[in-house]
């Protein structure tokens, strides 16, 4: 752990609003460009759910899946070299200097999030854009998302935002 990691940092949250996701894969492209990853290393997976039949209609939705930065991450516990680490602010990341590309983390992760970057032979995984966050910048995926389906910030602010959005929806429905 570096000194930077041992500092007390506020915990941030990445909120996903699937009702706004249009499956455009901008988050995936933004992440790949931010971390110089090849197209095959998908650190964000945008799932397309459907179309399913619902009565006479069809329904379809999209859900971007990336690292959940678990409280007790299995990937960190299982990593044989100590490359996979968790910071005080909750970000789970892989230290590429220590990573040997064994993919133990990929097996351990209940969501199958870590993937191998075949160009480097090391693990590629959402690192919460820790370098950007340390500079006070928003993560690349949340910043570029065209529809605002992803939003990032301190946990109380994100929760407040979610409550306000729901309240607005109800207020408009009653208008």
């Amino acid at each position, binding site marked *: 752990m570096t000194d930077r990691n041992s500092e007390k940092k506020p915990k941030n949250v990445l909120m996903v609003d699937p009702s706004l996701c249009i499956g455009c894969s*901008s988050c995936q492209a933004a992440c790949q*460009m931010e971390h110089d990853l090849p197209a095959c290393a*998908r650190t964000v997976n945008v799932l397309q759910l459907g179309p399913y039949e619902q009565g006479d209609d*069809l329904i*379809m939705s*999209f859900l971007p899946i990336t690292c959940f930065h678990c409280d007790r991450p299995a990937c960190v516990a299982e990593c044989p070299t100590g490359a996979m680490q968790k910071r005080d602010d909750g970000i789970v990341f892989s230290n590429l200097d220590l990573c040997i590309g064994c993919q133990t983390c990929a097996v351990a992760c209940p969501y199958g999030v870590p993937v191998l970057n075949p160009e480097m032979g090391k693990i590629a995984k959402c690192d919460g854009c820790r370098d950007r966050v340390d*500079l006070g910048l928003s993560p690349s995926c949340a*910043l570029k998302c065209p*529809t605002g389906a992803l939003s990032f*910030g301190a946990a109380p602010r994100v929760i407040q935002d979610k409550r306000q959005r729901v309240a607005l929806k109800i207020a408009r429905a009653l208008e």
Partner: protein
Amino acid sequence: MIDYSPMMRFNGTRRDHDLMVTTVCRECAVGCGLCAYVSEGRLIDVQGDEGNPVSEGRLCARGASFVRDLYHPERLAKPMDRTSLLDDFRELDSREEALDLLADRLKKIRDQQGPESLLIECHPAAGLDFYFAARRFAALWGTPYVYSPLDDPKSSLSTGVRNTPDSPCLSWTQSRCLFIIGADPAATHPVAFRWILKAQKNGTDIVVADTRFTKTMSKADFALRIRPDTANLLGMALMKAILEDELPAVEGIGDRFGDAEAWRNSFEGMSLEAAAEIIGLPSMIVKETARLLSKRGPVQVITGKPLAHLPAYGIWRTMATAMGWTGKPGGGWYPLDSGLPPLSSSTDVQAEGQPAIASAGQANAIVSMHDLLCDAATGRTDGPKAIICSGDCLGDLPLAGTPHDRPAGLRVYFGLRANKTSSLSHMVFPAQAWAERNGLFFSNDRAMLWGRKIVEPPEQASSGLDFWMGLAGRLGWEEQFPWKSDDGSANHEAFYEWLLGMSPLTKGCRPEALRTSSDCGEMVFWPFQGQPSTAAIPASLVSGSGTIFPTPAGTAENAPEEPDELYPLHIETPDPVSCAAVCVDSRLRNDRCLVQINPETAGALGIGTGDDVLVHEPRRITEARAWVTRMVPRWLVYLQGSSNEKRALVCKKGQSSQEALTILRELLS
């Protein structure tokens, strides 16, 4: 009301850089603002420009990842040449040498075959300078065959204002209903689509009509799934239903058209039931939709580019005007990818009696150009013998993958990266990317923006204007292409200044003024009225709509379709303008060409997702990977590529086409 303020966003880069260039993304026609970070001459990061009123700092997958194309290992570095398609390419030392060679070959072909032996294909990625300079070159050369998917075959210089958007996409939030037909902006223009979602949040109804269940349709409040090529007929049927029911919105119609009575009378002979049957909807649904649109005005009608190539395209302008939506905030017509003003780069050099450039005013320009390309590429007729193309038009043709050598033919590719077309060409010219040249940009919203160069181009790569100027100079047309800088390269600013002066709609607007206005966060729209505007809805955008000629009923009559004996399925592909945007998903995933097949159809043929399938069309067979999904109805397949065909037969690899045909006939009967 709840006081809601969106969460703060913190933009910027974490990378060390020595230059930040604010410019506009030219990947599609939305016109998102870009902040590009450069270090030691290399583009190292791209972020959205928070100050851009349309994109507000957002970027789509294409806008975020165009950097890949700049530094791609397969990027063309030097001009190349070969005399036969069976030979290997020979790298040429300089662009000048390559242009000398090309000019000699073209001259020979013209002497032997005449000027109409040249066909030019202009891909949007090659830039506006390539397109307009090509049209000028073609007029001087004497060929009418210039093709671009940006062309609007139903538009002409005099009526161009009619087929362009009334107001910017920002105004969609003021609409009470957005009616989206034959377009999938969620896939093709994601950043503009956020304004649709914003409008929906405000209570705007979203009505979507399309053949497939698209990403856009997944967000719709009302979805209409229609038969292929019937979108304009749907507009006609809706107009008929509105007139028949005497819905209140058409009361003032006499004031909106010159000859409203005759136009109204033209609908009397039209059968709503017959039209609804062709469209594939119950007539009750058509009537309900008509009532909804009439009640929820002002409606913003958003149409896709492919509709421009179907009969009765003018029905959408007619509908927006007849219903009184045009000119109201949030109302009117917004044809996607149609923000280009009616500029001409060839009228001053067009010789008398010479055939005009083919695209203007031709009803089926796209089809005829594709046929010409087929003929030219395969050497079947006396058509064009020389092809200069900037997209992958040859890769989509039936001959793709079979390197026939046609001694009399000449195929030239001008582009960024090697592709199927370059492998089927005799000469290859490396092109500059849009990020490597200054240029004028017309957004969907009719905004005129100045796109700044971000990085210097590779040494041998040329811009479209450089290419055509170099070629014209070798044919003695230097005077007609006078836009040279001191260093001999093309002066894009001077070229665009001349071009803007060629139309009364853009005259007086100078690139210098556009540069300054973008720096101040102001937008300049055409028709140009002298001042930039910060207003969301410039009044100038609706001018010209009062003098329209309404499209009468009867111009969109489609005969009920006959079942095809050999190709029982319909096939759809993305339209050429938005093709790259739709395919970005598969590009990001490194997937091969995907074909969407309905589960019922796939089940009958024994096809599962991921299986290799063959898509048989009348003139080609395409290998693709199956994606079994209800996004397509059982009578349709959707191929993420390019095709000019309407019918297809799909079978699993290894399965005989006759067996598949028998199964499909039984399934669809």
